[in-house]
């Protein structure tokens, strides 16, 4: 057995020179500043997603100033993977005989919390009104306590005035709150997952395919372990209430996936809360087995699936594009969903 506990004496002598510690600390500082400079100056330019997020306020303003039907598609990767905006507007134009414009505002792996701040940031601003905001969703996206990408929320979708709201409603643990506050000041920290991705896609040619395969398997593993449980809808209720206050018309659309647990999820509580506000709710799942030939992976569609479901979406939206929010919405905004 080694009962050795320390080499403190030797270390004590070695660290006696404070100049050495100062030099090391300076090197550390320089390295961290270098990485921060890279993150601020280069990474945003190199990341297509970050560029896209930065363009949203401009795109929202442009969309709002178009004439005809103005539709914003807000949500996770489903928005750009499962919906063809060109096809959608063509079909809506044909059905309504009014020029239609649609723009995607998506953030991969985002949930209702992030969508609220995206709407707040881009559409609930003076002059940025659109006719309809479509929110396509799958899985548990409408419920609270999903694992959010906190760095992205901090850097692109919130400002200092949102901090109290984010810290109170959207983040549950001290770790998440610390992560959010750090991300606001420290881009290297906020964008660490992008830096990881950048490093590995350059070092390992097959990394993206591997990551996707790993994610699919781990999804399946989590599903076998985690029992369904009732979850709260605080963030969804906030989104609905604020949308009503801004007279923003919403339509929630459930998309099918290849995940049986998601396809079978009834969303009864979420639907009740949504419909209580007079907001439209469309379910594009047919309830039966899905045609696997329409999917590129477990969640997203391929070109064929995208075309089919975009048409289905357009057909479902046509009757929705009518009068504004109902009286139920006003009641909800005044007193909450359960009242």
């Amino acid at each position, binding site marked *: *057995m*080694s*009962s*050795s*506990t*320390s*080499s*403190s*004496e*030797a*270390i*004590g*002598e*070695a*660290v*006696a020179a404070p100049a*050495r*510690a100062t*030099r*090391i600390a300076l*090197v*550390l500082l320089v*390295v*961290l500043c270098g*990485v921060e400079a890279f993150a601020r100056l280069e990474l945003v330019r190199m990341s297509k997603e970050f560029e896209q997020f930065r363009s949203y306020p401009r795109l929202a303003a442009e969309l709002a100033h178009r004439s005809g039907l103005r539709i914003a598609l807000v949500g996770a990767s489903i928005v750009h993977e499962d919906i063809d905006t060109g096809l959608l507007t063509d079909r809506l134009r044909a059905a309504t005989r009014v020029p239609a414009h649609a723009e995607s505002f998506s953030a991969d792996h985002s949930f209702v919390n992030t969508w609220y701040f995206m709407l707040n940031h881009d559409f609930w601003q003076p002059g940025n009104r659109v006719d309809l905001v479509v929110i396509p969703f799958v899985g548990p996206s409408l419920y609270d306590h999903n*694992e959010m990408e906190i760095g992205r929320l901090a850097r692109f979708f919130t400002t200092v005035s949102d901090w109290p709201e984010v810290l109170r409603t959207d983040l549950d*643990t*001290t*770790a998440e709150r*610390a992560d959010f506050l750090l991300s606001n000041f420290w881009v*290297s*920290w906020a964008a*660490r*997952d992008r*830096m*990881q991705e950048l490093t*590995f896609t350059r*070092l*390992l*040619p*097959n*990394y993206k*395919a*591997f990551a996707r*395969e*790993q994610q699919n*398997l*781990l999804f*399946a*593993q989590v599903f*076998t372990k985690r029992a369904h449980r009732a979850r709260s809808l605080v963030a969804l209720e906030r989104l609905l209430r604020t949308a009503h206050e801004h007279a923003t018309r919403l339509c929630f659309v459930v998309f099918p996936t290849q995940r049986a647990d998601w396809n079978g999820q009834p969303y009864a509580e979420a639907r009740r809360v949504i419909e209580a506000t007079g907001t439209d709710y469309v379910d594009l799942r047919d309830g039966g087995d899905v045609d696997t030939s329409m999917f590129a992976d477990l969640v997203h569609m391929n070109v064929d699936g995208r075309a089919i479901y975009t048409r289905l979406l357009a057909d479902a939206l046509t009757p929705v594009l009518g009068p504004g929010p109902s009286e139920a919405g006003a009641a909800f905004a005044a007193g909450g969903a359960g009242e």
Partner: protein
Amino acid sequence: MNYNNPTFWLLFAAVYAFYWRLRHRRQNDLLLVASYVFYGFWDYRFLFLILISTIIDFIGGLGVAGVELPKWRRLRLAALLIGSALVLCSNVRYAALAAGLVHLDAHAVLGALPERLRDFAVPLATAAVTLAYVAFLPWLYALPERARRKTFLTISMVANLAILGFFKYCDFFVGSFVNLLHALGVQVVDVRLLGILLPPGISFYTFQAMSYTVDVYRGDATPTDDLRDFALFVCFFPHLVAGPIMRASTLLPQVVHPRQRRPGDAEEGLLLVLLGLFKKIVIADNLAPMVNMIFFQYGRGGHLPTGPESLLGLYGFMFQVYGDFSGYSSVARGIAKWLGFDLIINFQTPYLSTTPSEHWRRWHISLSTWFRDYLYIPLGGSRGGMAVEYRNVIITMTLAGLWHGAAWTYVIWGAYTGVLLCISRALGTKEVRNVAGQRLRWLWRVLLTFHLTCSSYLFFRSSSVPAALHMGARILTDFTPTATAGTMLGLLLFYAGPLFALEAYTEGERHLERLFTAPWPRQAVAYAYCVLMLVIFPAVQTHEFIYFQF
């Protein structure tokens, strides 16, 4: 509460801010309260178990040494135990109770109190047993010395093993017994398992408390008559839930005697904490998804990974478990250094061992030596011929396997490890040193030992014995190279490679001074690397420390 949780560091900062300003007695009190707070974060009711272990071994150690507690102290201990049972285990909803009292709402206060008599089952049973024990104590003190020493030792052993057995193994043994009866064709009426929640680190602190009484019995440790000091010895938070398991002869004197700030402790502590967090957050947590992906596929059936993918999944687990466990030990040692304590080195580059025996002298050193000193040697050790020695090795390792978890995979892992040790002893394999002239031989033996250890860890990690065998067969029969295997190898090298090289240089934590005495640019590179990896490459998802479950 975990080291990878910011709340821990906030609370620790608060403790540290006061710690060195206090006198020794108050320092111990602060550490005791902090230890209970940290542990209570999981579930405050678990504190009751620690308290039982503490009081039984406190009385046991003194009883073995022939120190008679005066009546008023015995009654005070009984009151403490019964009071804690009432407070911690009577299902009072304290948050609601506090709110009711603040708002002077009698209805809310009544609603927060227990409703049924069975809510008081634990306090009532505790009161009965405690009062009986206290009543019997004068009689035990009056026994002849030899009988008294043995009786107190036996009470300590039985109580600790009963706690461990009930909380960790009850469901396992009941389930296994029912399965055995089913296999024999006996249809038993439906037996419902208790579904007992496993208190984190229970195996660590019960072993530590137990070893204290044994050491006092053997004359290897001097008992303390200060309950607070002893309680701190049992629950000292840096190592409470995942070791290293400290002996009374090493830790208790550090608790009892005043501690001093020594030059170098702060820096060594910082390095240990940094290395420990690196091992946990960068290596273990990042390798976890890759490992889970491979082992999950064997658990569920269907499409299986290829042989190279499976092998890399197994390698990944080897580094994950090492990063996880040695990472915890490093952080524990670092924090203890900041507080003026020395905890023993628990890992010493085990994957550079050249024989299975050497591996076990370098891996989880505090547990290996615990089993050696308190089980293997009392069983007879290597005295009594080869057959007895091999029997003792296999019994010891099988029980070590069971210590790790209540599942047959752990039992088989332990027994298999015991067989490997016996074969190694039978072949008379000697350790090979990494010196000029025999480097190739050393390398070959390191690789051989590493792979033998890997083969045992197949059982450790797999969800079942058939899944482990299936995976082993796949590794040995399928050699299809795939792009996935290439990516896994790349990730493994990226995360574990540099730290492994650094550990080889410093021989684990044994010669950290090599890093401190290296030219400053080299030190700066090492620190910058660790910090950058912690900032840019922490795992997306944090995981519990694996050894918390043991």
